[in-house]
């Protein structure tokens, strides 16, 4: 349920409590206090999933946090463009999706390399290793191989559980186009996963061969 809790305002349902945001975009004007309250409520409700979505899109925790921050600032800036309160989640995903795509486009031009200032003996932190493992499985690698828009559509539909209408709104396309995009995304993922499994099997075979060769030499 999501409805107006007071005249001229709306509420974001959190499951625990409601976050009333009075006097928001119904008037089409931007108000600093209303925008601040609204974005604070949005953040409390959705910051976890937005961060997760961006992390799965970008595969870089620090960068995902930066982009999440950027997404909420953009939401604050464009607070008066949201027409219906019940669309706030899809609207926020739309902002986050565009932020991610903008970054990916920019990254195609300028790609920062891993920091090399560490001493040779230093090792990455346990947190970093855990995150790398989490982000470097076959599925993540396959997801990284498919086009960004398809990746975003799959993540929003399957992981973040957006409905068909919400997905279309978040992608900024029609419902039919969203379904078509999702169909292409599933096929792309299937092929990418197959390629990953093939590559992984080949790498495993190489390792086995190398181990066998080393064992023979050891004898």
């Amino acid at each position, binding site marked *: 349920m999501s409805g107006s809790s007071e005249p001229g305002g709306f509420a974001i349902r959190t499951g625990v409590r409601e976050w009333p945001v009075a006097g928001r975009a119904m008037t*089409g004007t*931007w108000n*600093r206090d209303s*925008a*601040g309250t609204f*974005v*604070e409520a949005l*953040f409390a409700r959705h*910051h*976890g*999933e937005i*961060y*997760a979505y961006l*992390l*799965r899109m970008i595969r870089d*925790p620090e960068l995902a*946090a930066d982009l*999440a*921050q*950027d997404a*909420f*600032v953009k939401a*604050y*800036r*464009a607070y008066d*463009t949201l027409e219906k309160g019940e669309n706030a989640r899809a609207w926020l995903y739309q902002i986050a999706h565009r932020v991610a795509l903008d970054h990916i*486009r920019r990254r*195609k*031009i*300028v*790609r*920062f*390399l*891993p*920091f*090399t*200032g560490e001493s040779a003996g230093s090792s990455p932190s346990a947190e970093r290793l855990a*995150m790398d493992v*989490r982000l470097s499985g076959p*599925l993540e690698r396959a997801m990284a191989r498919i086009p960004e828009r398809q990746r975003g559509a*799959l*993540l929003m*539909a*399957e*992981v973040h*559980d957006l*409905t*068909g209408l919400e*997905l279309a709104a978040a992608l900024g396309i029609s419902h039919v186009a969203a*379904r*078509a995009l*999702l*169909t292409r995304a*599933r*096929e792309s*993922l*299937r092929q990418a*996963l197959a390629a990953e499994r093939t590559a992984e099997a080949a790498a495993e075979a190489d390792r086995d061969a190398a181990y066998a060769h080393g064992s023979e030499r050891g004898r």
Partner: protein
Amino acid sequence: MTLPFRRRHNDHETSHDRARALIATGYLQPNEPVDADWLEAHLAGCLECRNDHAAYGADRELLRALREHAPEPPRDLWARTAAAIELEAGRRTRNQRRGRPPRSWRIGHLPAGVASGLLVVLVVVGASLIPRGGVQLGPTAPAGSDVAVGTPRSEATPLAVLTERLAWIQVAEDGTFEFRQASVNEVCPDLQSRCAPLDSAMTTSLAITQAPQAVLMSPTGSEIVVVTSSGSAAGADIVVLPVPTVPPPPETAAPSASTDPSTTPSTTLPSAPPSAASTPGATPTEPPATPTPSGLPTQSPDPSASPDPSASPDPSAGYSIVTGVVVVGDAAYSPDGLWLAFSARLAFGVVGPDLYLWRVGDPLATAVTDDHRTFFSGWLGGQVLANRVETGVVSADPSATAAAPTPSPAPTLTPSADPNATPTTPPAVVEDHPVAFLLDPETLATTPVAGTDVWRPTVDPTGRSVVYWSGTLIPDGTGTGWSLGTGRLVIDGWLDGSAPPTEEPSAKPGNSGRPTATPAAAVFGPTMPVLKTPTGAGPLPGSTAPENRKWERVQLAGTRAYAQLSDRPQTARVLDLGYGGVALEISSVEELSATFEAVLHVPILPPVRVNLKPLYQVRTPSGQERVGCAFVS
């Protein structure tokens, strides 16, 4: 029998595609019963699609398993987001106070693309509705037979314009020159129209017979300054003429029967100078009645050499503030309109120019230098930006070793008396060096401009850039001037010294009570205005055109920033870095391809791999090549 649809060669593939699409969309929302039945039937007979179905399902389970491992956002995410929002709120509030529209990608409620499309449509439709003959501003002519029924003759309609005060010089019917001014609030295409005639009272006759060299109107609008032609043997005069007050324009243009707005002026202000000696038409053989500097340096500021001071200027009449000179360059008022500055040399004699100042209301202009090698360049706020030429000899010909520095102020300016004399030694190329300085017209204190060989600098109105000739000067052989030598025109940064100008140690009081500035002894100090390129070298060759950069650039020269190019072993220095590109210093650019990859190692930032596209290259003084590159994908 007719089939409901035509069979195609790829119907088999199309059915598989449809099956895959239905499988995929079925995960998003249930399929229609018809589609679900069709899919079930298709899957029953198609192993490939059943495999796809199973694969999609497995992949979906993999994806949905990610829900159980939701990454934890950083704990400080809200703190940094709140800080960023606070910053954004402050910026927005400031913009609202300044009346700026909020930054938005929408125009009103329309996306910018849609709005621009609508605008194009409106323009096209509007243009199609306008008659081919153009817009008719007058009354619409009746159509058809109505025209024959005594319709009043169409005439041009006066066009209302923003009221503007205009002033110009024109040649009268008798061949004399007159200065006219008017406040214009409407214009008409011809004299028969209903525009009111110009007010003839706003005409001032100019007692000049030749076209003036220049005419300036005071910023205050109280007088005009006419620099007469210096083509005559007597040289030029600078005449000051009061300007009649322009009455406010009438609210509405009254129809007038007058068809000749250029009728003879009813009043003509006298333009005769106060003394006969300064009359422009004076006999050339007469010595100039001098407020002007003579060939002797000490004479110039001497008021006793000026025309009778008792002949104070009649405010209602024009008068000469200097006679018998050749004005070098342009004269210009100070921004507040209180001073006029120019450089001029004597019409008689072989000397270079000096700097003159005239305070509005004074009877005469005063030469504030007597070195005969000072040039007025412009005004910078309330100070005069001027140049002095330091003489010296530099031999461009190595064989001309006899050419030695010449400390004398102008020893090299006088050409040989015998033009037929053949020099026995190779001619030395004399190259003098300009020095720029600022001069306070009130105190005559000078402030040198840091930088060598800075000639005729002009600072832009914002005070951030300066344009000047960076190079030497060559005496032009007449003994009165210089031409450009070796150098180039540059645009440089301008750093204005905020401290007041230093008092010139060698400034000595002249006869007029003012010190005579000798900028030759100017001392460069920390408070002086400086060029961003202190050597005066300016930008590198090939980059003399103003650079209109979209993004700010960070200068990295002097740091350890370098780039490792992918296609060559050696590295390249990074000179500057911006959002759109980077400038590299490379020893040779022969092998550079249209685009190449490089890894930038820049302080603070981690190494960054970029694709670069060379845009331009120029040779640096060190013999390297500066290559400007853009980031490309």
